[in-house]
């Protein structure tokens, strides 16, 4: 019983962020759902020898491995897999994950400060996976405008990161 309570608590705390993490990588609602459920199943099996502190790291490392395996299974490009592995490499150790959570909070604040057109561009490209040329056509602007918005936002994110590091 005690284990179920602990498990449920962990599930409630991390489910959503894990689902979002998976979906960014595999871009498939159902698949992400299944992958996250698989990770929680592995956690359930090991719930006796897992302490709540290390659950988050266990779940992220497990999920990351499963998502990348899924990409390989679906025969996504070698380089795309490598890109994914590199970008998500900071969800491996407890210290790094903690850092990424803070980073997420920072970027969240930055996004709220972004002007709607820039936010729209990010959503079109990185949530709906539109190529820059497609996004440009949809919004009636040039590709260089699209890129300009993105670059400006990235510089803003970077500034914010540097400021917090000092």
């Amino acid at each position, binding site marked *: 019983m005690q284990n179920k309570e602990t498990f449920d608590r962990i599930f409630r705390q991390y*489910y959503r962020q894990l689902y979002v993490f998976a979906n960014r990588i595999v871009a498939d*609602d159902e698949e992400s759902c299944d992958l996250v459920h698989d990770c929680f199943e592995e956690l359930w099996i090991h719930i006796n020898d897992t302490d709540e502190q290390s659950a988050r790291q266990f779940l992220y490392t497990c999920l990351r491995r499963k998502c990348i395996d899924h990409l390989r299974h679906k025969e996504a490009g070698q*380089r795309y897999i490598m*890109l994914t592995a590199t970008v998500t490499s900071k969800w491996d150790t407890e210290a790094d994950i903690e850092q990424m959570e803070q980073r997420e909070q920072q970027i969240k604040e930055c996004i709220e400060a972004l002007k709607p057109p820039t936010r729209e561009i990010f959503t079109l490209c*990185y949530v709906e996976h539109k190529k820059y040329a497609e996004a440009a056509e*949809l919004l009636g602007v040039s590709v260089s405008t699209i890129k300009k918005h993105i670059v400006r936002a990235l510089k803003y994110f970077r500034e914010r990161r540097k400021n917090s590091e000092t």
Partner: protein
Amino acid sequence: MSEQATDIMEPNAQLTEKQMDDLRNDEELADECRDIFIAAGILAQEPKDTEQQLERFHKRHFIKRMRRLAYKVTISIAASAACIAAILLYVSHNDDSKSPLLVEADADIQPRLTDSRGYAVPLKMYVNSQSPADPIVIAGEYKNTQRPATVFSTVTDTVSLLIPKGHSCRVDLADGTKVFLHPGSRLNYPSAFGGCSRKVALEGEAYFIVAKDEKKPFIVSTSRSQTIVTGTEFNVKSYNETKECVTLINGKVKFISNQNQQNAVELLPGQEASIDNSGMPAVCEADTMQYTAWRDGYHYFDEATVADILRQIGTSYNVSIECHNRSILSYHMHYVVRRDIPLDEAVRLLNKMGKLHARLTDDGKLIVK
């Protein structure tokens, strides 16, 4: 450097070896790419009900544990185990124990449309006043009220429509063909029909009213068969768990089993083709009422088993069903209802027959006694 990150993170970008090298060696560049990854996560409005997912998780485990328990009962090992086994057997015969799930609801997902790369495409469903249970999807349409309307970049882009449990719809294809999709089905179709034939792919079940075009045969492809027609009405049933089944209502069809492509069979109205164990097509007479009734917006069960009726209710409303009295599952019943009625109304009509008692619990399960 931000320009570099922008280029690397473009969706479907053709990455170069140089970009990969830079990424490996430049931590700052990796950080920028990561920022995009994180930003995407924040902007994605993913509607996920955590509580529901948690429930679903435990339900799967409950069923796994029950199955393991049932297995132990049939093996019957040491004295104490045999004792427990005997008690469990006694209890299950008396139907007082936790009853096995007859139907399990899926996680609640909405119908969705994806393009050939697997990315989501906006889906617009129109109200169908003739048959409210089947909202209409129009092929080849891409409408987004927030952004200026545009068309697919390639005119005959193929899309995949998923209709999960709890939903049904009618798809109007580019040639005027109408397809009535059942819950738990998927249809792949192009936005327009080019070439010399009209091809669609189906998983699950659908009723087709095909627009006449003698020059361009219409082909329904499933994992196990091909059905070829020119202009006609027929039903295709292609679920993994049951036999492949194509029933002709009127017109003419040619049916080909993928395992045995030389022996195509031609069906006459009222006939049904299926695939036997050796992969050969087989023809028999069929009752077409249940299929035409679906087309007209009804569930039609004539002397069907309670088990079958319950399974259909489970799929149509995406609800879990438990049965506490296994003996009534083999009763035969007549049950004809409109498909657009709410679940509690469907349950009331089911109970009206007096042969069983079904009750909806607060957490959306149907308990049948």
